[in-house]
C-alpha cells in the first residue's frame, strides 16, 4: 500500500571500479581530517589557558584602594545587609592619627571577611557599596579550595595590591 508518493525505490547497482578499490574515498576522508589539523581550534587548554569572560563576569572579590593607596572601605555594612547569602561580616575600627594614608575615612574595616562557601557571586555587594570599595573582578576567579579552613577570605586576600591594581574594561 502506498501512503504517499514520496517513497523511492532503491535499485542495487554494480559498484564502479574506482568505488571498488575504496582509495579515492579514503583519500577524501583523510583530506577532511588533515584540513582540521590546520584549522583554528574551538577548544582551549583550561585551566592553563582561560577564556575572556567579558567585562561583566563576577569573580573574585576585591577591596579597592584609592589613588593614594588608602583603603576605600569604611565598614558601613551595606554590603553585608544586601548580601542574600549572609556571607560578609566585618568589624569596624576608628582611624588613628597618622593612619590617613592607609584609610580614606575616619572609620575603616579592621576585619572584613567573606565566606566563599556562602557567596553566590550575585554582585549585590558591589551594587550596594556607596564608596566604590568592593568589586567582583571580571578576570579572576576564586581558586578551588581543598580545605574548609581556606574558605573564609580575610583582608589579606581581598584588599587590592598597589603593584597589581584591578582595572575593569570601560574604566579609565
Amino acid at each position, binding site marked *: 500500500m502506498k501512503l504517499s508518493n514520496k517513497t523511492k525505490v532503491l535499485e542495487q547497482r554494480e559498484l564502479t571500479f574506482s568505488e571498488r578499490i575504496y582509495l579515492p574515498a579514503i583519500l577524501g576522508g583523510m583530506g577532511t581530517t588533515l584540513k582540521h589539523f590546520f584549522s583554528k581550534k574551538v577548544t582551549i587548554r583550561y585551566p592553563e589557558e582561560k577564556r575572556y569572560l567579558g567585562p561583566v563576569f563576577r569573580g573574585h572579590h576585591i577591596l579597592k584602594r584609592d589613588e593614594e593607596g588608602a583603603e576605600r572601605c*569604611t*565598614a*558601613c*555594612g*551595606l554590603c*553585608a*545587609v544586601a*548580601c542574600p547569602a*549572609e556571607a560578609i561580616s566585618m568589624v*569596624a*575600627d*576608628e582611624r588613628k592619627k597618622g593612619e590617613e594614608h592607609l584609610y580614606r*575615612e*575616619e*572609620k575603616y574595616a579592621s576585619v572584613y571577611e567573606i565566606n566563599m562557601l556562602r557567596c553566590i557571586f550575585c554582585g549585590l555587594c558591589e551594587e550596594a557599596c*556607596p*564608596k566604590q570599595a568592593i568589586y567582583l573582578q571580571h578576570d579572576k576567579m576564586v581558586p578551588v579550595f581543598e580545605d574548609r579552613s581556606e574558605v573564609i577570605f580575610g583582608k589579606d586576600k581581598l584588599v587590592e595590591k598597589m603593584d597589581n591594581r584591578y582595572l575593569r574594561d570601560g574604566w579609565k
Partner: protein
Amino acid sequence: MKVTIDNITIDVESGTTIMNAARQIGSHVAPPAMCYYEPLKGSGGKCRGCLVKVTAGSEKDPRPMPKLVPSCITQVQDGMVVENTISEQVLETRKGIVEFLLLNHPLDCPVCDQAGECDLQNFAFEHGVSKTRTVEERNTFEPVDLGPYIKLNMNRCILCYRCVYTADQITDGRVHGVMNRGDHAEISTYIEKAIDNDFSGNVIDVCPVGALTDKTYRFKSRVWFSKPEDASCSCGKCSGKVTLWYRGDEVIRVTARKNEWGEVKEFICNTCRFERKKTSEWTLEGPTKIAGKSVISANKYGANTITPAFPLKQAAAQYKQIDDSRDTSFLVPQKQLN
C-alpha cells in the same frame, strides 16, 4: 473639635496641634518631625519639615491659610481642613526643606553611627530628591568630645535645639547651648566644658541626626546588625526601663525606650546608659518591637511576617459582607455531567 486631615475627620481636644491630631489618626498621615519632640516643652517650629497646607481655617472662617503652616506648633480649630500628603504643594515644599537641611550636612552616612535610625535620613529618603544641586563648600567643624561619653560632630547638626531643651528640662544647670547666630550657629559647651550630669546622656537619644553620639558605642556596630531587647533594672536615679542593643551576647549599647514617633518614653540616667553593659545587670523583658519597614529588621528572617497595624485596621473598617445570591445554577457539578 473636629478637624479633617487628608480627608479623615477626627475629634480632638481644643489646644491640640495639627501634628498631634494627625498622630492620633495614624502614622500614614502624620507629618515628619525633625525638631518637634513631644516630651520636651517648647520644642518644634525650627526645621519646617512638618509644613502642611490648611485649606480651611475653621468653620467660622473657612478661608485657607495664605502660607503653609508648621503643624507641630499650629493648634487646630473647629472645622479645620488640613492637607498633608495629598497636597502637591506640601510634597514639593518638603523637597526644598530637605535640600536646605542637607546644605551643610555631610553625606557621611557610611561612617555615622546614627545611620539606620536617623530622622534626617528617613526624611530625606521619603521626601527628598536623590540628587544634590549644591556645589558650595559645606561648613566643617572638628569633632569635639563633650566629656567622656558624648561625641559632638557639629557637621551633622541641623540645629533642632532638642538637646538644648533636654538639657534645660531634664538636667539641672545646662552647660551647653547654641553659640553664634544664623549661618554660624553651632551647638557648643562653654569653652568646651564637659557635660557632666546624671541625665546628660539623653541628648544622644533626642538628637535626630548623628551630631551627638555615644562614645562607648562609637563604630562598634551598625544599627541593623544589632538586636534590640527591652530590659529593666532597679535604678535609684531613673525608671531603669531601657533597650539593650546586642551583638551576639555582648551588650554594645543601651538606649532609652522609644515610642512609635522615635520619642523617648522615659529618660534614663548615665549609669544605666554607659556603665551597665552586662546582661547580668538587667532583667530582660523580651525583644523590642521594630517596624517592618525599618532597616533594623532588614535581612532578618521573619521580619516580613510582622503585620502592620494600619492595613489591618483599614481592612476591618472597609470590610463588606459579600451578597452571594446570584444565580449559580449553571455551575453544575462535574459528577452530574458524566
